[in-house]
């Protein structure tokens, strides 16, 4: 059974600081997704990582994938309040078309 673990689960940080969220998964997969969820809202796709060494950046967020270590990171640079949300990583099982989600990291950026 595929397991996806994120840490930390809760992250409170100050504006302007940097931090990294980690996502580990237990089964071979070369497709990893990051989603953002605001309170009471649905999930918004942020990044799709499709191969070992893939790196994607959008604004203050950068995601990377190491398939050998079964690890993805979501790095936050110079955080701003608008980044406050819950971030989920999700992994596609090898047979495809079904995602397993991590527990989510609830990020709060304080002024």
């Amino acid at each position, binding site marked *: 059974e595929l397991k996806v673990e994120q840490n930390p689960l809760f992250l409170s940080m100050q504006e302007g600081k940097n931090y990294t969220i980690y996502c580990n998964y237990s089964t071979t997969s070369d497709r990893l*997704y990051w989603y953002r969820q605001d309170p009471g809202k*649905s*999930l918004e796709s942020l990044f*799709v990582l*499709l191969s070992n060494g893939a790196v*994607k950046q959008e604004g203050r967020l950068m995601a990377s994938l190491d398939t050998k270590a079964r690890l993805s990171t979501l790095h936050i640079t110079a955080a701003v309040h608008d980044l406050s949300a819950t971030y989920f990583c*999700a992994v596609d099982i090898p047979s495809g*078309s*079904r995602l397993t989600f991590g*527990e989510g990291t609830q990020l709060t950026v304080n002024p």
Partner: protein
Amino acid sequence: DAMVIQNPRYQVTQFGKPVTLSCSQTLNHNVMYWYQQKSSQAPKLLFHYYDKDFNNEADTPDNFQSRRPNTSFCFLDIRSPGLGDAAMYLCATIRWQAGANVLTFGAGSRLTVL
């Protein structure tokens, strides 16, 4: 424009009273999913369709059923809702984005059970 549309956005029901949630998609994709997300938890896959081929997750309770009358529409039926079924129900399909198939979610239907 919304590609996955869910109705109703909010549903209140009584314990044991059947509920139907609907989902439509404009992407004309052959795959549709239903996820359940309880408060402060990760989304959990209930079932998915590949065309009309229904795929139930092993731990999805029998209380949850689904119908897909055509490519565009999918329904989630909860036959006898219990208090533990209060959750956000998310419908999803697949969209081509940034060179990959990406699961794209509707806005969700939040179910309250009294």
